[in-house]
């Protein structure tokens, strides 16, 4: 009997895993600017180690929250950004390739798109012009 209780307790605990949530475009609101998410090429998400999920419509909204200190920088289980070329799908923010271009009309005017593959970023860079950035530069730029 005790084993049954223990097993069920453990399985209960395990079911509360920390997981990212998909962005529901047209329904979810950005945590920083309160706008409803609509553009599937842009978006970001932070998930804390306690499982709290913050959703954003643009990278500058995510960085505003990230730099606000409301959550400690080590307190995130996931830092995710939407891949510009794969609408509504996430890639790890710290490893993504970023393109800042005036031709990018993002929801909050950050002018930044994220890519999971460097080749995709290079292709868009030829088309849209602009500059290539990585995570570290991005975080300091929006401080």
């Amino acid at each position: 009997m005790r084993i049954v209780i223990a097993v069920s307790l453990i399985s209960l605990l395990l079911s509360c895993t920390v997981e990212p949530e998909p962005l529901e475009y047209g329904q979810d609101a950005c945590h920083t600017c309160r706008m409803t998410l609509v553009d599937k090429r842009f978006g970001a998400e932070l998930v804390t180690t306690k499982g709290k999920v913050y959703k954003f419509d643009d990278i500058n909204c995510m960085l505003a929250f990230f730099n606000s200190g409301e959550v400690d920088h080590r307190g995130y289980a996931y830092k995710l950004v939407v891949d510009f070329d794969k609408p509504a799908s996430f890639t790890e923010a710290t490893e993504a390739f970023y393109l800042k271009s005036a031709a990018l009309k993002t929801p909050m005017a950050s002018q930044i798109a994220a890519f999971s593959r460097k080749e995709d970023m290079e292709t868009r860079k030829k088309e849209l012009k602009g500059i290539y950035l990585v995570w570290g530069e991005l975080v300091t730029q929006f401080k």
Partner: protein
Amino acid sequence: MRSSIHILLFFCLFPFLNQAKTVTVDPKGPVSTVRKAVDLAAPGDTIIVRPGTYREGNLKIGKPLVIIGENYPVLDGEKKYEILTIQSHDVTIKGLRLINTGSASMEDVAAIKVINSVNIAITGNQIINAFFGIHFSNSSRSSVRDNELRATAVAEDQIGNGIHMWKCHDISIEHNRVEGHRDGIYFEFVTHSFIIGNTSEKNLRYGLHFMFSHNDEYRNNAFIDNGAGVAVMYTNGVKMYNNTFERNWGGAAYGLLLKEIKDSEVIGNHFTRNTIGIHLEGVSRSTFDKNDFTANGYAVRLQASCDENNFVRNNFSGNTFDFATNGSMVLNTIDGNYWDRYQGYDLDHDGTGDVPYRPVNLYSMIVERIPSAVLLWRSFLVMLMDRAEKVIPVVTPENLKDNAPSMKAYDRVKERI
């Protein structure tokens, strides 16, 4: 003397020097396409388009022209093309019916697109099922008037905005009707402009979306039943007069969402049956005067990040919560409003109550922290707690009170601004 004769001669000859001709487009006439007419016309000419359906793909207008439709001739984009692309000064587009533009994820395909232009008038057109309706960028001194825009999209990402303005100044948007787009009217980096007498209804996201657009004014508009209401953000010096915000219901819907606003005025507006009448975040030095809040979930939700705002002469009636806040510091004044829940008295008959009114409900503070607690609202215990809190404030901000509540609702007929 000589010079005055010259001037006289000039004025006599002026009409001939400047004679613009008219080109008529008729499906059965010698000029049967709009494209041909645009090619034939000299700068400053007028093109009259006779009734008919014209399927001509994308038409580029690169010189000053007046294009007038008779009885709404149809320009059909066949769900493939942007219909009119204007890149010239002094262009008028009037009385056309533009239907079925193409759509794209990278480009903003529009029924009428205006780029880098001055002195453009878009008047009295019907735009049906466009991706973007009227799209201006980098343009100025132009007007968009008496147009009707209707679209039938189901998802926000499948449709663009009705009237979209990006990096413009001195624009006037008057008496248009926008329905079923993503955002009805969209302003980003637009300054010194007017939005007057428009109706923006049943749009999927915002009725009006306003970002980084300083010193604009919008008055006498109606924003009804939009997915998320109206958002005005990151802007200084905006004037909002006599607008109606109605029936904006939903989890993330606001009659009016104000975020990072400074030195602005919200006067004489009506907020009726919205989930949240006005939500304020980071709003400073602004005036909220003579507004009516009727039958909203929250009339005003004031976040602690707001300061030096003044609420005066507003009517609050039939709202579930009159005022909600998430902080204990109060840096705003709310003196001299009418509250239908006020239970004080007026012994000296000066029209204002003798005891202050505290509009923040204890339970609204709890709901601010635990949203699902709203389930217990109107239960007996909650009512008891609320009464006790009214007598001895513990949770609600002590200083958030109306020191001179009006005994009677303000009569708006007598005092229009």
